[in-house]
């Protein structure tokens, strides 16, 4: 039986950087009980002798030559920015007041 407490769900929301309301946390706690029970079925057949597949194609390390190719101008790259300044993304403060 898989289950998560409301505090567990609140911690997941914090890790995922989503400020959730109490009501949302309540709903998700209930839903996760049901969903986790359903998805835990994978453990029935996932024995140690079965290799994992992370991707459908057997590709690895696709490189390109290290040459400059045309790309976005600074104006284009910043065109969707919520705020910009001097050709940079302007972001809210990252360090606390005491820093």
């Amino acid at each position, binding site marked *: 039986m898989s289950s*998560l407490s409301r505090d567990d*769900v609140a911690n*997941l*929301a914090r*890790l*995922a*950087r*989503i*400020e*959730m*309301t109490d009501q*949302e946390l309540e709903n*998700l706690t209930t*839903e*996760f009980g*049901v*969903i*986790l029970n*359903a*998805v*835990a*079925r*994978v*453990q*029935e*057949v*996932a*024995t140690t002798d*079965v*290799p*994992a*597949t*992370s*991707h*459908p*194609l057997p*590709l690895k390390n*696709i490189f*390109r030559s290290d040459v400059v190719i045309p790309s*976005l101008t600074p104006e*284009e*790259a910043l*065109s*969707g*920015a*919520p*705020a910009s300044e001097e050709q940079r*993304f302007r*972001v*809210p*403060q*990252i360090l*606390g*007041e005491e820093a």
Partner: protein
Amino acid sequence: MIKNSAAEMSAALSNGATTSVALTQAHLDRISEVDGKVHAFLYVDTHGALEQAKKVDDARARGEKLGPLAGVPLALKDVLVQKDVPTTCGSKILEGWRPPYDSTVVSKLKNAGVVILGKTNMDEFAMGSSTENSAYGPTHNPWDLTRIPGGSGGGSSAALAAFEAPLAIGTDTGGSIRQPAAVTGTVGVKPTYGGVSRYGLVAFSSSLDQAGPCARTVLDTALLHEVIAGHDAKDSTSINAPVPQVVAAAKSGDVKGMKIGVVKELNGDGYQAGVRQRFEESLELLAKAGAEIIEVSAPNFEYALAAYYLIAPSECSSNLARFDAMRYGLRVGDKDGASAESVMNMTREVGFGREVKRRILLGTYALSSGYYDAYYGSAQKVRTLITQDFNKAFEKCDVMVSPTCPTTAFKIGEKADDPLAMYLNDIATIPVNMAGIGGMSLPSGVAPEDGLPVGFQIMSPVMQDQRMYSVGAALEAALLSKWGAPLLSQAPALGGAA
């Protein structure tokens, strides 16, 4: 004119019976007339579409050699970026964003002279099976406006069924091209993973996402497939091999001597009676056309849904971390003294809808230390078992078949509060994505009990996409001669001048 196939429109353009501007205007008019009821489009690019149409007409007048779909209109799922045209992915977090570049699919469409009419509605970030998870309101199924058009690409499928466009682009992570095709009586193909570039496709689950063609006939779907497919250095998971000859396969429709494997596990209990009846009838028609029908077994498919709802949320929780309110999209709570973290937290709370948050948290859990092996790790092992089931079955048959969905279109709102019931829609389509193979859905008729369309699914091995087109074309021809007219002629009129 708007009820014709894209191939017929193309012929009319070539022989001068019409112009691309006239054809495009006819579709824009149709959109104005019926999209208030259907809500297939999030954005209609009237100016851009007519401009592209004029360019194609001018090129044709100059005698330039044009591709088969030059001048034919298309509806684009709002998860593929098109330069300067709003792209929302059905989410508030991207409202108003205009991408500064074209996705490879869009570049290829533009180069082929295809006219992009606008962006179609979808479940937010392609997470859903009904288009009810769009932040901009649901799309309505043209067969019955109280029902869902499938999802996540319900806007694209509804646009085809409502004759708002003869061609559309979808993306398929767990069935988002095929299930909408099934419930709207249209055709949709998920190519082999890596067959169509993902560059500029806003990522949901990178190891499963695949863009593909949608249309009203198998040949139209093939023509569009060849336009968008091919190796792309901008997508490191793109397959560097020749595009399968899908147009030739769709034109020949030859199934003589082909072995068609019916998947034992994707039928029976849980499948609506009318869905099963149409499926059996299609098998008989394919046998009459010269194919050999055998039964194949895929015992691990029953775990596919569980594995999918671990793998897709895990990859989504990582991919959607990019929506951080810093570089593009919505920013909420940026007042004096607010930290970047609190702005991020508030923006993601306001910008994401319920299903997206549910999956981000589920994925965060499945990938977390202490639970990784039990959930994500186990799901990856199931992925191996499903691929092995396909490989074994394809030793006995050329293609595998099943109903596309267990039921016909359900009512809007019917499953909105039950995520597990909603997830069950994708039970027959998900195995294809897990193995990265090709899958097609085409209409096999309507279910007698509710008069709604039923889809027939064809699955083909990696980079053997032409096989599903051969089988699809053979079945389509047999059904057409039985019906006497395309299935969509049985759909109710939506009003308008069509």
